[in-house]
């Protein structure tokens, strides 16, 4: 299977080995938030905690800004970066909404009325 096939799907992250390599330390940082002690240390001084990890500056900035799109662009995996949202007490739905530039209320209303239609969102090349 070629990456090109996945790349033809608009607005969709597929967590390939390449992305895993790019996001290795970012995802390790996210996993560290599973421990209550680490969560407390992160909350007390986010920058200092991030500096303990050999992450790129852009990845650290994305964490500090809670820019989930940027986190995925830089190798974050959705299930790992959601741990940052959990620290903030944010729901998965509010993170999903933020990707699409919607408020959580707009997004929830869209889901209640059947979700986002795949029409026009299947293929960049128009093959599907």
């Amino acid at each position, binding site marked *: 299977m070629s990456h090109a096939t996945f790349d033809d799907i608009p607005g969709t992250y597929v967590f390939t080995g390449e992305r895993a390599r790019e996001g290795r330390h970012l995802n390790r940082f996210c996993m560290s938030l*599973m421990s209550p002690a680490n969560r407390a240390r992160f909350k007390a001084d986010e920058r200092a905690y991030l500096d303990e990890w050999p992450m790129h500056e852009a990845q650290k900035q994305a964490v500090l800004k809670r820019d989930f799109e940027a986190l995925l662009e830089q190798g974050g995996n959705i299930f790992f970066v959601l741990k940052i949202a959990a620290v903030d007490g944010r729901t998965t739905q509010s993170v*999903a909404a933020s990707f699409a530039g919607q408020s959580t209320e707009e997004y929830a209303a869209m889901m209640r009325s059947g979700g986002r239609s795949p029409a026009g969102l299947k293929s960049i090349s128009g093959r599907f």
Partner: protein
Amino acid sequence: MARITAGIGSSHVPAIGAALDGGRTAHPDWAPIFQGYEWSREWLEAHKPDVVILVYNDHASAFSLDIVPTFAIGCADSFAPADEGWGPRRIPVVYGHSKLAWHIANSVVLDEFDLTIMNKMDVDHGLTVPLSLLLGQPAAWPVKVIPLAVNVIQYPTPTANRCFRLGEAIARAVQSFPEDLNVQVWGTGGMSHQLSGRRAGLINREWDLKFLDQLTADPDALRTMSHAEYVREAGSEGMELIMWLTMRGALGPKIRELHRFYHVPASNTAVGHVVFTPENN
């Protein structure tokens, strides 16, 4: 002799667990989902298996990205509910069937499916939400559970066909277990959903319903489908549906569909649920 008597497919949305644990099952957002499982809960009362082989995926709970097994079987005596960031769900500990799990591991590895053996593993909503939906809120789970974790997060994920054929190998393993046990195989995850990117919130009802039709009547169409097609049509997390094929593969060529339920949404996800029995049962 052990025998596989039924297969169940079910979504495993974490928010369903939160709604159940928080006593919000009557809320209009959630009531239709719990109603859709009522038939199955009653049916399970009358057709309670001794053991459920529960095919699911972990969501960065038991497995970090340090070690990524493609298929991992839980051989422990018990599995604790995982802390997914807001404390473990207050549900009973999941008891395994170590002897059958080891028998399956022995059988399928020699059958050329290289499972990772887990003697210690916490189980997250991927496993516990289907248990709650189908067995309610008992003080102790009335069945033993063998967790079978499939990697659907880190690519390369196994092909749909590999998942199906693992189901066939599990069926051969169960049939060769000498004790008299009633075994069900549950496949979980899906249906269409995508949590990230511009397509976040994607639901493909038409494709989901066709998947359910084909799962019963034409699973070959689903086992030969590419990863790209699963992602394109069912969303990035819709890839989880390949785990339903392990259940389907374990049931043999001909099945009877006893129950089907489909509902949109549970939070971000389309909920699908089926109950099958093998035709010779």
